[in-house]
């Protein structure tokens, strides 16, 4: 079974904190990865319900990570929302091609992200 965890992959600490503040304060459980490699390890271990994936990562790119996740027998079906500063249409299309369910372009309105999260996994689990 999948846990209720959201995996946030992002190398920029500010943006990591932004998403953490946005989602954690609303009761979502969040695990964070700074690199693509770390993301793969965490995904394997945590079995997230949703992945927020920054596409521009230093070594292993978000696109590569997405491809591997999609190839994984058990994680293949997890919703992946790509977050990218690459605004070219071609980039968006490539992200969709490797299996991202949605693409959010930076800078985004935090409320838009919130709406997307709710769309994929519903409102945060109520306390208790």
């Amino acid at each position, binding site marked *: 079974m999948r846990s209720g965890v959201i995996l946030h992959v992002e190398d*920029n600490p*500010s943006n990591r904190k*932004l998403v953490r503040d946005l989602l954690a304060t609303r009761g979502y459980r969040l695990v964070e990865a700074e690199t693509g490699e770390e993301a793969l390890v965490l995904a394997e271990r945590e079995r997230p319900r949703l992945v927020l994936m920054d596409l521009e990562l230093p070594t292993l790119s978000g696109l590569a990570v997405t491809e591997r996740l999609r190839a994984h027998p058990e994680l293949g079906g997890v919703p992946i929302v790509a977050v990218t500063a690459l605004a070219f249409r071609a980039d968006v299309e490539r992200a969709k091609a490797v299996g991202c369910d949605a693409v959010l372009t930076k800078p985004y309105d935090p409320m838009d992200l919130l709406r997307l999260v709710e769309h994929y996994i519903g409102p945060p689990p109520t306390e208790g």
Partner: protein
Amino acid sequence: MTRPRVKWRVGLPLKFILSISALIAVTSIGLGVFFMQHDVALVTVELVERGRSLVRNLAFNGEYGVLIGNRELLGTLVRGLIQQEDVLYVVIQDATGAVLASGKAEQLQAIPPAGTPARPWTGRTWADLATRSTQIDWEGDTVYEVTHPIRTREVRQEREALGFPSFPGSGARGIQRERTIGLARMGMSLSVRRVSETLAGVRQAITLVLVLAGLVGIMVTVLLVRVIVRPINELVTGTARLREGELDHRVSVSSRDEIGDLARSFNRMAHALRQREAELQAHGKEMVRLNALLTEQQEALRRINAELAAASRHKSEFLANMSHELRTPLNAVIGFTELLAAQTYGPMPPRVEEPLQEIRQNARRLMGLISDVLDLAKIEAGHMELSYAEYLVPQVAESVAVTVRPLAERKGLRLVVEVEPGLPEGYGDAQRITQALLNLAGNAVKFTEAGEIRIRACRQDAAFLFQVADTGIGVPAEVLGQIFEPFRQADASVTREHGGVGLGLSIAKRFVEMHGGRIWVESAPGRGSLFAFSVPIRAEQTR
């Protein structure tokens, strides 16, 4: 290339020789005939003259024989004459016509009788009237008959007869009376030997003339060959060599005649050709040089062009990358501001609310700027593609109005939106068309202090016409043509006050043009502006 070849080529030398020979032959034959006739006539005259003197002698010598009737004596005279080769016959007759003595050459059969029809001798003779010469045809030959009367002189001494004494030595003083007592008659004919001798002389002369004429003919031919044929041959080879391209060839004929003229004119022609060719060559070289120069310049231009294109692409790519880099921190700024405003961190003290709003607004403006730069960069780097779909014009106008209305109202401007009812569905990139119209409307609000903004959309043939009219400051004529260029702004002071970097119109222009439409402006300072663009109702996807 095929030269008409004559079957029988008769060269000039041969022609010369032939014609000169013919001339010589005709002349010689004519001369021969003339001389022959002339000589024979001379010989005849000579013959007749001889005959006349012979017959005179005969008549004189025969006087005594006739007087005394001594036939013996006369026969001796006749025989002596017959010995002569050219004497055919001799007859001496007395006054009655009786033949006293006669003789004939052996070859003659009979002596023509007296009274044989005769023609008068027409040749020149000495004025001796007594001697008569005639011409008779006898035995198939022309015989020249000469006659002379035989006379005797009777001197009657008149004085003696009258009784006067005669003085010695004055015999002539007596009265002389001549009496004809007979006739001496002779036939003469040209001897074969004489004639053939004469003719041989003539033949010799003619042969000599022929030989001489032949020599002269050969000399003349040689001369003609030297003077005409050789120069002509030289001209012929000269022409051939000229044709082969040896333009420096000259013929060395310098005679002062028509051929010399021809040769000189030929040389002048060759010279002219040479010059022409030199000029052509110079031209050709110049052309080659110019061509090389052109190619070089073209190459240089092409290189510069390529460099410029590369530079422009690099610039655009740099801008695109820059905007990516800008987006990440901006994302944090905007995000945290939003979280603060959404009271994620708890309620805000009232006095920070205003600064927070400032941050939010400026962050959004910054965001818009970055988006504009990125859009332009994307377009110029060739990455911008339109996303075609069906769209509705009222929706486009409405979303622009929604964005602009709060800004207009804040400035106390009236916003009027007029959309022609019943417009067909459009096909194109609605988001880009909306952005173009928004940029125009945003400018209208930005550059208008009072009055109204009117947004209109209607159909014009196969295109939609979008117009944004304002009552603002207007655009000076001298910059009207430039404001659609990136970073071009009409007035630095005005724009400093209004903000913006000068990208709105250029982006709108590019979006419109990508749809195959066009954009334009009518404006004058203080009179407001009318910005408009048209896009095909159904845009072609090929752009």
